[in-house]
């Protein structure tokens, strides 16, 4: 009982460090990676801490090598983590497709930077399409979490390992340079014991000369078999879509203008929504916490729940990617506008407020 009364101790951590510590506390004992700004602190933290908890830290010779080490360790039943930033994630995409094809769980962190190509090193959200539409070739999805605070960088890592193991689906934490580099006070979760980790009866742990070998493989040359496997996987995706979609609503109840934003960008929007409210504009924020599964039901709720929403504005640190999903859900019932900054620029609350004010003025006509 006294436990609940004791104030949990807060620590000051960078987002990247929180990701790494949270993974260790989730029972992750294998990290394979390759350095790239702005995620290098994840690897640096793991390099320091992993040997102390008896795990394996390995700086691979390339991103491609790292993701294939992930494949091997995951097949053996371990909780495995790799992290990179945008260009490095592209290099890993082949391996991620193989993980999906072999139904192997893994957590992959993308601390996004501006692209395309080598791009820049400043914060960006321009890998939304990649994460939610085409994380590699073939028929598959990865589960995508989008933290917005350093506390969520910590908490969602635990969740990512849980759902990844539960559904045997690779899972991504889609962060960005701002979240990776900033420090905030957080409360760290208790570390899991080995006994707390889920059983993996499918893992390749050695037959002991007794049972039939398990196989982790994505090669399937018989079309009918491959279709059957893909259909079974997509049946699991239906469960994921039903049970795992998450969004946060902020001041949405009486909002006429709902701004949709995720990750670091949602923080900026929150400030802008508060400022708009002070100026007498009924604005709210809808923040997807999972990007896939897409929390379309939250938008449906605003549309059908007798709400007063008259239009949507999507704000992203990209040229406009998530806005596609907002438009698919809204499906022409209300106007959906977009505002974004690209190349590594974080919008300011003032410029988002300006967009909100503009739409609040013109909003009456459009709907």
């Amino acid at each position, binding site marked *: 009982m006294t436990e609940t009364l004791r104030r949990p101790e807060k620590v000051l951590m960078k987002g990247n460090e929180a990701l790494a510590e949270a993974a260790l506390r989730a029972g992750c004992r294998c990290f394979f990676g390759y350095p790239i700004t702005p995620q290098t602190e994840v690897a640096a933290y793991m390099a320091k801490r992993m040997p102390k908890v008896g795990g394996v830290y390995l700086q691979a010779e390339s991103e491609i090598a790292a993701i294939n080490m992930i494949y091997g360790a995951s097949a053996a039943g371990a909780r495995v983590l790799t992290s990179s930033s945008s260009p490095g994630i592209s290099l890993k995409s082949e391996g991620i497709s193989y993980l999906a094809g072999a139904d192997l769980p893994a957590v992959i962190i993308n601390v996004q930077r501006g692209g395309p190509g080598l791009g*820049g090193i400043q914060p960006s959200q321009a890998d939304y399409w990649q994460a939610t539409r085409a994380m590699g070739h073939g028929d598959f999805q990865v589960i995508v979490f989008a933290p917005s605070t350093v506390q969520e960088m910590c908490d969602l890592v635990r969740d990512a390992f849980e759902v990844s193991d539960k559904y045997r689906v690779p899972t991504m934490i889609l962060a960005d340079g701002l979240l990776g580099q900033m420090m*905030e006070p957080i409360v760290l979760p208790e570390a899991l014991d080995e006994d707390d980790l889920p059983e993996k009866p499918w893992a390749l742990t050695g037959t002991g000369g007794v049972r039939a070998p398990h196989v982790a493989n994505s090669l399937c040359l018989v079309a009918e078999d491959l279709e059957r496997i893909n259909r079974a996987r997509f049946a699991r995706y239906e469960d994921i879509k039903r049970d795992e979609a998450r969004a946060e609503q902020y001041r949405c109840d009486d909002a006429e203008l709902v701004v949709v934003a995720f990750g670091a960008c949602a923080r900026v929007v*929150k400030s802008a929504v508060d400022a708009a409210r002070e100026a007498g504009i009924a604005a709210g924020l809808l923040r997807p916490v999972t990007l896939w599964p897409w929390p379309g039901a939250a938008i449906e709720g605003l549309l059908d729940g007798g709400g007063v929403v008259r239009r949507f504005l999507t704000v992203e640190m990209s040229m406009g990617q998530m806005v596609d999903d907002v438009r698919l859900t809204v499906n022409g019932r209300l106007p959906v506008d977009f505002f974004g900054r690209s190349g590594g620029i974080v919008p*300011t*609350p003032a410029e988002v407020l300006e967009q909100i004010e503009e739409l609040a003025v013109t909003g009456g006509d459009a709907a």
Partner: protein
Amino acid sequence: MSTKPAPGFDRGSTPALSFLFAGFGGQGILFAGKIVAYAGLLEDRELSWLPSYGPEMRGGTASCSVTLADTPIGSPLVTEPDSLIAMNRPSLEKFEATVKPGGRLFYDSSLIDIAPTRTDIATYAVPATGLATEQDLKGLANVIMLGKLWHETRFCAADTLDAALEKAIPPRKAQLLEPNKRALALGKGL
């Protein structure tokens, strides 16, 4: 005139405070910000600390945004600081215009050979680098500046500031605590 909290203000009604530290790489810009961040942590406030890590850092200039608040912090990027701490001339030139009206501008007058032009903010010429050299506190102009910042803004309680300084210095660098404490006291007395 300004709405800045006076010394001894009631913590419960403190508005958010935003700080922008800016200067050359190596001047301890991030470290100065970290002390403010730890002060927020020790007083169980909401806080954010965000360093510049981009090309400007590789080019030699650094900046650090810190916000202290009692409600969750939206954007951690400080674009309109309540207090700007400018440790070199490019920083003063770049950020003077961004200081909130009624805000404060602290600048290292040993290194900056121009004066601020704003009249709607309080400006403090602090010869921090000169004092550091004189007092055998080389490299601690940042902490002298922080002392002055605290003296003018009281962004935390006095004993919190001391504890924050100790927390910001890792145990393996414990020998740096004493000169840092001296630098802080020097700045607070300015």
